[in-house]
């Protein structure tokens, strides 16, 4: 009965002849906040893409709470309870904030987005076209779109990308609480190691398209390979 929230086997992606992701395995327990770290170009975004079914030349066996969704389209995965945000903000510039959240909510069988607007501090800009709101608001809108309908598994690709130090700290805390309250399992790509050590239950380290290490924050902090490959340069 104890199905994992997310089980990924052999995640692979190639760009032409270049293998960006070489058979990554990953298992995330229900309710866990898992951080995915690694140097630039390690394949973190690529792994999120493969898990969410984005792009060509991808292959992986993906199970969501025991259900095989390996062949499901991104839309079907969303309906099955897997949602994601984007490293490069992906919103609808021509549509008012509330409208796009309502569109997302409608698909999930919900009719109201006031709670979400409140959670992400977007109520003040609810009726403004998303292309005209501030960058910080746009980042939070991207997240709010992913959280519509309270997905069971949430893949977040650098949610704080481009935000100030203060903003990103605050956002991370907020996401951590929201995930706990809504019982969302999270796989989070994040560069800021303070944030990672503060909010992750476990950490997976990627390097050159492979898993370099996996463990709880203390283990990762102490892992000599990780220190050499990543923490040494990042710290």
């Amino acid at each position, binding site marked *: 009965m104890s199905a994992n929230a997310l089980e990924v086997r052999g995640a692979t992606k190639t760009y032409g002849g270049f293998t960006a992701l070489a058979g990554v395995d990953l298992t995330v327990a229900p309710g866990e906040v898992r951080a995915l770290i690694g140097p630039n170009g390690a394949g973190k975004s690529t792994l999120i893409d493969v898990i969410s079914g984005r792009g060509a030349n991808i292959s992986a066996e993906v199970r969501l709470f025991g259900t095989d969704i390996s062949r499901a389209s991104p839309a079907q995965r*969303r309906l099955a309870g897997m949602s994601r945000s984007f490293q490069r903000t*992906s919103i*609808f510039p021509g*549509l008012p904030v509330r409208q796009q959240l309502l569109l997302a909510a409608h*698909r999930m069988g919900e009719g109201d987005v006031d709670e979400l607007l409140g959670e992400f501090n977007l109520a003040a800009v609810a*009726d403004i076209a998303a292309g*005209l709101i501030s960058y910080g608001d746009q980042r939070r809108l991207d997240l709010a779109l992913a959280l*519509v309908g309270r997905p069971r598994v949430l893949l977040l690709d650098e949610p704080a990308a481009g935000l100030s130090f203060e903003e990103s700290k605050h956002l991370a805390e907020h996401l951590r609480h929201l995930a706990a309250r809504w019982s969302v399992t999270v796989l989070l790509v994040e560069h800021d190691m303070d944030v990672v050590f503060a909010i992750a239950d476990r950490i997976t380290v990627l390097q050159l398209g492979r898993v370099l290490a996996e463990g709880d924050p203390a283990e990762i902090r102490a892992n000599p390979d990780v220190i050499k490959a990543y923490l040494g340069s990042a710290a």
Partner: protein
Amino acid sequence: MEADRTGGGAVVTVPGLLLFAGFALVGPAAAFLVPSTLIQSLLTQATIYAIFALGVGILIRQNGMVSFGHAAFFGLPAYVIGAVLPLGLMPPELIIIGGLAATALMAFLVGLVIVRVHGIAFGMLTLAIGQAVYEAATRLRGLTGGHDGLSLDLPRFLFGLPLKTFQQPGSMLIVTWLVLALMLAVAFLFAKSRYGLLSEAIRDNEERVRFLGYRTLVPRALTFALSALVTAAGGVLFALYNAFVSPETVHWTASGSALIMAILGGASAPWGPVAGAFTYFFLKEAVGSFTTHWLSIIGVSLIVVTVVFPAGLVGLFDRLRPGNRSQGAANVG
């Protein structure tokens, strides 16, 4: 106002209805007030082309896609009517409705294939389809009359009205205007519907729509079909008014004219292409009377519009309006 779209509030408001009723009365009023048959005829043609351009504009506004081949959908129902009428298989009214339905269905099926392609490549595909229909119109002589065109042998009564209702400028101005009002209402309600919202979201960011759980191909093909259907309604009126259709009707230059009207007027509001069509006909008439180079005048004004008012007459109107709303306006680039 836009906030109501999926919120369950009223899309149709009292001022909106009054505005619509007022608009619907303009055509009939003009038919009675304008004594000159010549001007009535001009207005009737402009109204027919306004419906054509409205269809082109729906595609731009809702799908963000530019068609260079919509004349195919304008001429197709006319050819269907012309080819099927002589067979005497069914009532003419049914043929007209069937012609519209067939055009919309064909656009949907074609749309399923071509809306996968974006930007200028999509435009080229529509151009190719338009030219294929043009070629067919010239080659299938038995069916279409080839270059000579096809005279429509229309019955003496249509939809309970004497045929001359559709062929005299004054009465036809009323008919075309009411159809235009109906089509504008359709475009407006579609834009305000959840489906319209979905199509705009797809226009803005198709990938994200998929990651919100929606399929995107069918909605885009349906928008394409709706756009073709509106244009086809204009084509039917054209066929009834002239009782004649020729390959010129489906030529790419006709598609180009309708596109110019849509851009001149601006596609970010449904009424833009309509205003563009009337401006186009007015310019053509005013300038055409003292020079044969009126097309170059149109060309120059188009350049001016795209440089100075990229959002067309709609953009100009929004800018002049007190308390202009720059927010919420869809930016169609």
